[in-house]
């Protein structure tokens, strides 16, 4: 079973991305693009996708559970929350779908603590497919052949 990603030339050097949909309890299904990030422990929704999904800092503070463990990252002070019981759906080469259960991290930066320039850069960062899911597959990246896929 193989799930194709692709190399995006919006990044320098090109970065491996993958399309997915995510089911969030009480919010329903949403679509997103994830950066395949072997440096990330957990699959994580970052600011711009959180905004698309309607997850603001105010919403998170009132409705989401703070992440049970401290999360270390690059990019200033951030608040980290967790949504338990999420399901990520990936599409195989043959068009069939595969669902992966996970506890999803949400990392939100407080815009009031950031300069406009830093805020703009953080908003450009894609959400991350972390090792909690990558490790369930074999990850294949061959930039020379423009190939990215997850396989098992």
């Amino acid at each position, binding site marked *: 079973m193989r799930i194709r990603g*692709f190399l*995006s*030339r*919006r*990044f*320098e050097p090109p970065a491996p991305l993958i*399309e997915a*949909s995510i089911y969030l309890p009480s*919010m329903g*299904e*949403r*679509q997103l*693009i994830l*950066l395949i*990030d072997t*440096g*990330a422990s957990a699959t994580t929704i970052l600011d*711009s996708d959180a*905004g*698309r*999904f*309607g997850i603001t800092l105010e919403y998170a503070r009132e409705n989401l559970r703070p992440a049970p463990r401290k999360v270390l*990252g*690059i990019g200033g002070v951030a608040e980290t929350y967790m949504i338990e019981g999420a399901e990520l759906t990936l*599409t195989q080469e043959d*068009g069939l*779908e595969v669902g992966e259960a996970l506890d999803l991290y949400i990392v939100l930066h407080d815009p009031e603590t950031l300069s406009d320039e830093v805020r703009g850069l953080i*908003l*450009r*960062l894609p959400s*991350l497919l972390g090792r909690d899911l990558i490790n369930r597959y074999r990850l294949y990246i061959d930039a020379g052949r423009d190939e990215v896929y997850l396989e098992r």
Partner: protein
Amino acid sequence: MVSKDRMRFSRAHRWFEREYGRLAEHLDGEWIAVEDEGVILERDRDINHLLRKLRDRGLDPGRIFVGYVSREPLVAIL
């Protein structure tokens, strides 16, 4: 079976990646919402304004591809 929402999102995203160089020439510094291949619904320099415009039209931004266009490639250490 892949839903219509997912197929539309995938077409929009693949078009965005394919046409990114051309988009960057014309829409540098803007966020754009792409509904389907070649269909730009809204654009704005501020993502929050863009998301508000979509919601004001009764659309769910969580089901629509939203991307930032820049002549500068993104260099990030994550």
